[in-house]
């Protein structure tokens, strides 16, 4: 019985100790900590938090100590005299009715101020970013810059970013713990959030998550945020709005193929000729070497999806491109029925596309809603059987002979491993 108090003190000490530990720890240990001030918004949130936390802890410690004192001091003793019978005390009760109000006022004042400040419209001249939630990936658009991308968001430091949040299906929630609180993406509604990344913030990467349960792969709806200098951002943006270029060799092949098509109009492909794009510098990409360990996905590959990585070396980008752009192949390689590759034949536009825009997919570091790294092997496995790689995804199983959970049977019209290697080779040219 007398041990009761000792253990009740446990949580108190745990909390205080752990908070001290947290304060001392670097982001290496807790790479998604909300206790940061990398943006004005999160600095405001943490200012309120600090106030609430200190007052809350004071109440917690005082009341638990009081309880602790009472159970030690008044523990029953055999033959103890009758306790003094008290039914109440108006003065004391008035004090503890009023004192919570005194504690609440210093919480309410900054709460109200911060709520109104952070929900005011964003300043004019902010960078506009449209966020669309999809089951289960993120679409990011820069309407002023003509960019549509997915799962990886670039924002310049020192500039206010105004997010316009919408969803294409169910309710999601946009959350980057180290940068800001969350805001829901509600169907048939447009939400806003804005913040300014600290100008002093280095070239850095942050994990983002969907924070509102949105179905089977809710846990697999992740994203990355890159904070980069304005100069690097401009370089990235300049390149991202171009069409899919591919490698110089592939670009040359495309020009040749297009002119051949013009010479023989009778056999013209339904794919319109892409304007020969000038091959330019690939633009800034967040350096792979700076991806912190916590931002490189480590999701294990399902054992049931097998792909011989040796085949990848033999993949041919030109063959891959022909494969997915030939209309006759739409049955077995219908990539373009759900994905947009700017410059290639469009069967869908970005507003109705079910999958991410792949125009510059090779400039990204992750695939599949941020749960796998972008590398040839993961891409090949993904194309072969995305259904197994990510539960519930709307991306079909394309590997010939693979079991598709969606079809509840084997894929009879699909891609051989060699063909998948070709498609992977092509996708990797989409820098």
């Amino acid at each position, binding site marked *: 019985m007398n041990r009761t108090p000792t253990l009740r003190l446990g949580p108190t000490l745990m909390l205080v100790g752990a908070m001290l530990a947290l304060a001392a720890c670097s982001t290496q240990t807790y790479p998604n900590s909300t206790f940061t001030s990398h943006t004005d918004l999160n600095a405001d949130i943490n200012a309120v938090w600090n106030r609430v936390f200190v007052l809350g802890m004071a109440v917690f410690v005082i009341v638990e100590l009081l309880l602790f004192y009472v159970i030690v001091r008044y523990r029953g003793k055999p033959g103890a005299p009758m306790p003094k019978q*008290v039914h109440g005390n108006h003065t004391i*009760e008035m004090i503890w009715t009023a004192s919570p109000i005194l504690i609440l006022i210093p919480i309410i004042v900054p709460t109200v101020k911060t709520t109104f400040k952070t929900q005011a419209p964003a300043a004019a001249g902010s960078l506009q970013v449209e966020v669309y939630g999809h089951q289960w990936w993120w679409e990011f658009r820069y309407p002023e810059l003509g960019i549509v991308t997915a799962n990886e968001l670039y924002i310049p430091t020192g500039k206010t970013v105004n997010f316009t949040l919408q969803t294409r299906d169910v309710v999601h929630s946009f959350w980057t713990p180290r940068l800001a609180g969350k805001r829901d993406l509600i169907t048939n509604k447009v939400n806003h959030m804005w913040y300014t990344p600290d100008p002093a913030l280095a070239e850095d990467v942050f994990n983002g998550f969907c924070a509102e349960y949105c179905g089977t792969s809710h846990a697999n709806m992740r994203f990355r945020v890159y904070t980069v200098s304005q100069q690097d951002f401009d370089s990235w943006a300049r390149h991202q709005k171009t069409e899919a270029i591919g490698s110089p060799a592939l670009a040359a092949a495309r020009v040749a193929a297009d002119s051949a098509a013009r010479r023989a109009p009778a056999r013209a492909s339904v794919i319109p000729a892409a304007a020969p794009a000038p091959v330019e510098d690939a633009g800034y990409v967040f350096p792979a070497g700076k991806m912190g360990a916590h931002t490189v996905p480590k999701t294990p590959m399902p054992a049931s999806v097998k792909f011989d990585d040796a085949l990848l070396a033999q993949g041919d980008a030109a063959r891959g491109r022909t494969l997915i752009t030939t209309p006759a192949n739409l049955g077995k390689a219908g990539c373009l029925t759900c994905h947009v590759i700017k410059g290639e034949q469009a069967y869908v536009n970005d507003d109705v596309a079910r999958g991410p825009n792949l125009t510059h997919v090779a400039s990204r570091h992750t695939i599949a809603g941020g749960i796998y790294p972008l590398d040839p092997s993961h891409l090949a496995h993904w194309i072969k059987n995305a259904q197994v790689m990510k539960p519930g995804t709307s991306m079909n199983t394309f590997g010939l002979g693979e079991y598709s959970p969606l079809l509840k049977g084997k894929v009879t019209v699909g891609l051989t491993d060699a063909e998948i290697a070709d498609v992977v080779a092509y996708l990797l040219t989409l820098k």
Partner: protein
Amino acid sequence: MASSAAPAPAFAAAPAATGQSGLWSWLTTVDHKRIGMLYLWTSLAFLFVGGTEAFILRLQLAHPNGQVVSAEVYNQLFTMHGTTMIFLVVMPLSAAFFNFLIPLQIGARDVAFPRLNAFSYWVYLFGGIFITLPVFFNVAPDAGWFGYAPLTTNQFSPGIHIDFWVLGLQILGVSSLAAAVNFITTIIHMRAPGMSMARMPMFTWMSFVVQFMLVLAFPAITIALFFLQFDRFFGTQFYELAAGADPLLWQHLFWIFGHPEVYILVLPTFGLVSEITPTFSEKPLFGYNVMVFSGILIGFLGFGVWAHHMFAVGMGATADTIFGIGTMLIGIPTGIKIFNWIATMWGGNLRFTVAMKFAIAFVALFLIGGVSGVMHASPPTDLQQTDTYFIVAHFHYVLFGGSVMGIMGGIYHYFPKMTGRFLSEKLGNWHFWMFFIGMNLTFFPMHFSGMLGMPRRVYTYDAGQGWDTFNLISTIGVVFQGIGLFVFAYNFLKSWKGEKNAPGDPWSAGTLEWSIPSPPPEYNFAQLPIVTSRYPLWDIKHPERTAELRHSDPDTAVVAEAHGVPMLEQTETRTAKALGIPMPFPTIKPLFAALFMVMLFASLIFLHTASLQVAVVSMIGTTLLFIGAVYSWLTSPLE
């Protein structure tokens, strides 16, 4: 049914309730005490179901990228864990105490509508089975316990998973509403002479508030569920995105129910703790009036703060501010209660029985949930906390540290009254410490994993996110809780069969239920008591405890005379028939009415699994059966 305090006339009793054992007697019982026991057994059985679900969830999350269950199974398990614990465990555990205690505490011989009471129980049992069975066939609901539209519409949740959830909650709502009407009537109409509202035991008071909350809160979710039900089965468009539905309609309707529901889950425990602490402090409850008013205030404010679950949805700064401040204000009456419990113990002669330990732990742990609650009542900080493990930690401190710990205290306290047998204090100590250590190990680290960026409801998380250690500790904590639960089960079953040695008043308590034998005879009070104070039994047995209290009759001699000797400790054990006390007949009809009603709801599933014809035939058939059962019930005499 004895409807007032008038001494029962010798009644030409036909077959009165005499069968006290055997399966048939349990199926046909209309005795509030036995129905309370049925609630207790059933909800403890569901506690094992919900606990097993939680254990699997924690196994999956023990390590990053866990492979114990698939995403689909995990999502079903977390949905059913929440649904089970709220609707099938904590609410009916409270109902067990409502049933068993309210008539005893107010000096009544049964509830106002004994057969409706049986109906409530059977609806709960069949509804609970209906919503739980799909877990074993991989078709359980999988959209979370608050089932946000549009995720729950046919477009995003084809199949029958959500059908079970929608229909199951409707069924359980019927049970709660029927019971609430019953208890409101009971408390208003059936109090013994002298049992004024200002003398009602605190448990009955808090239960009274809860019944009103049920009556007011359930219609909101019933409407929300009917919309969804009609969308799913009949093609209406309340939540249909293409038709321009606003998903916030569901969220508002759900939380107008969902937030009062939190107080529905915890107020009965406030009541139990308010019975346990005075008994084992050997002092009356401190500040009775304020305890009553703060309970009413919590119930009232509880209806005005629902949108604090929705700070992230973009309601605008004004709405966020109003709901934020409103939420913080609930901290005031709740704080008063905590201080009053401590003041009750202050200066007392504390006896640390297992019940008392649970009650003290309740105060200590509920406080943690209350403090973290204020932390996310502030909209800016909530935007970092909502939908993270911080919230999971918060509501488990409220609902496990609060409701479950308090109810466990109530079980240890009232088991002798319910069964005439004691639960083992030695095993109870093991149970208590396993629960106390286990729940803190499990839920405290979740504060950290949440603030360090871990979203809730994820079936997996990647390595190296800074959450591994916290998650492992949480899982280890569940092992302690599991051990505690098994110790409790062993204790419960062993004592159930054990020696009947509990006296009428084993703890030297002060309220009416302790003035009659343990277990009480079917008619509760052979002679209806005349109540003179808040602690009528203390007036007689410990006049020194109530002598100084303004609420008591000043002259204890008058009090003792008014009670008469039989009131002091009633030892009458003859049957109702022998005493000529009219008791309601046992009847199987409420069971059939409940069964057919549940089958009627369940018939809708055929729309999605069989054909329209099968569904219509089944619905018409079960409707006729239901009407038949109700007709037969209503036309058979009560007593």
